[in-house]
């Protein structure tokens, strides 16, 4: 891989705004983006990426290759938390292992969105159904994480727990719901819908992403000090497991014969970890796991690692292998 690609990625305005947010915390500036503005940006980004994915879907009909990719996506979302759990159990108790495993089995929509902008800068494209893959990968690890937790915790009375609650939380949580819903709306309205919403969801998209990454920089920098609690093992985990997942993603992409752009986006999904949907579900379903482990790992380490180093790294490896 070429260090120049990392350098050029860092010069993306979006990435630079992420650093600006980090700098604000480090230099103790009182710069702050109060709620619900970050919520606005994230709703906007989910709606836009979902809708655009849907419009793309409406242009290319479903086929076997797409189906296999979606299955591979779900497979990753099921397998990753299982082996992550086994790794984590060597050092941690069941509840923390299950919660962290679930976090890494899921995906980060903002990483995916940042990757889409990165790809666009390179003049490459990806298929709309990868947005569907993203939506499908968000939730399974929540269920897997909880099953692992239940299996390995003896004496947990099953009755006090509501599975229907959990499944609703896993599949209908706000972000999954909005992505899937927008995807469906995009695919139903197709080109005419695209034309009507284009200036809103497309033209100002990169600016909204920059604004949101500024906030992500602030929020994740505030979480960095929590990493002290995490210790070396978890810090290594937060970098190495995404790399391993990315490698698996690249392998699967090759098997599935994906285009270069699609392989990249699929790999990014595999490598990313959740810091919104899964932590929320874990807080509720495994309340004895420690949020100040699983949140900062994914938010303050894996997320910036992926958008700064990961994107150019994965892309150059794929570029090497595909050409």
């Amino acid at each position, binding site marked *: 891989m070429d260090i120049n690609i990392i350098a050029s990625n860092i010069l993306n305005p979006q990435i630079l705004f992420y650093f600006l947010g980090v700098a604000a915390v480090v230099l103790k500036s009182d710069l702050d983006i109060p*709620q619900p503005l*970050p919520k606005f940006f*994230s709703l906007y980004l989910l709606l836009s990426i979902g809708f655009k994915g849907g419009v793309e879907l409406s242009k290319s009909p479903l086929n076997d290759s797409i189906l296999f990719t979606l299955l591979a996506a779900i497979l990753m979302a099921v397998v990753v938390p299982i082996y992550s759990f086994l790794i984590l159990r060597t050092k941690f108790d069941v509840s923390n292992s299950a919660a962290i495993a679930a976090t890494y089995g899921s995906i980060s929509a903002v990483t995916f969105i940042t990757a889409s902008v990165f790809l666009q800068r390179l003049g490459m494209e990806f298929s709309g159904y990868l947005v569907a893959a993203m939506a499908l990968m968000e939730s399974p690890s929540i269920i897997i994480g909880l099953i692992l937790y239940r299996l390995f915790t003896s004496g947990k009375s099953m009755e006090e727990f509501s599975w229907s609650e959990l499944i609703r939380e896993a599949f209908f949580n706000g972000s999954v719901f909005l992505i899937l819903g927008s995807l469906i709306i995009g695919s139903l309205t197709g080109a005419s819908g695209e034309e009507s919403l284009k200036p809103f969801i497309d033209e100002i998209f990169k600016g909204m992403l920059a604004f949101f990454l500024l906030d992500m920089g602030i*929020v994740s920098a505030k979480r960095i000090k929590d990493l002290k609690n995490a210790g070396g093992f978890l810090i290594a985990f937060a970098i190495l497991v995404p790399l391993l997942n990315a490698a698996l993603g690249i392998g699967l992409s090759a098997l599935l014969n994906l285009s270069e752009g699609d392989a990249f986006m699929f790999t990014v999904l595999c490598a990313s970890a959740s810091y*919104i949907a899964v932590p*929320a579900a874990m*807080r*509720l379903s495994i309340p004895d796991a420690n949020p*100040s482990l699983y949140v900062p790992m994914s*938010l303050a380490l894996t997320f910036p690692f992926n958008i700064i180093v990961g994107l150019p790294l994965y892309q150059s490896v794929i570029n090497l292998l595909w050409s």
Partner: protein
Amino acid sequence: MKSVKKLEIVTVSVELPRILERFEKRGVEGYTIIREVTGKGKRGLQDGDELTDVFKNSYLMIACPEEQVNEIIEIVRPIIKKYGGICLVSDAQWILH
């Protein structure tokens, strides 16, 4: 003017709907909620900075007759036990209108 007990409860916002449902069933007739309070307790800082609402706490104030206090406590106690929080009881006079 009527002597009542004032309960002040801080606990996770996401469990609020469940608490209020049970209030409904048990005839707790009035309450006031302040959403998105921050704070610190045994489970550490809750600074409301999280990207999800799941980490947020709410403050619940209930004025009720002394007889109802225990019932309310039994509703919130398991939730505070599981997810954290605090429940205070004090005396107050309710000014009737």
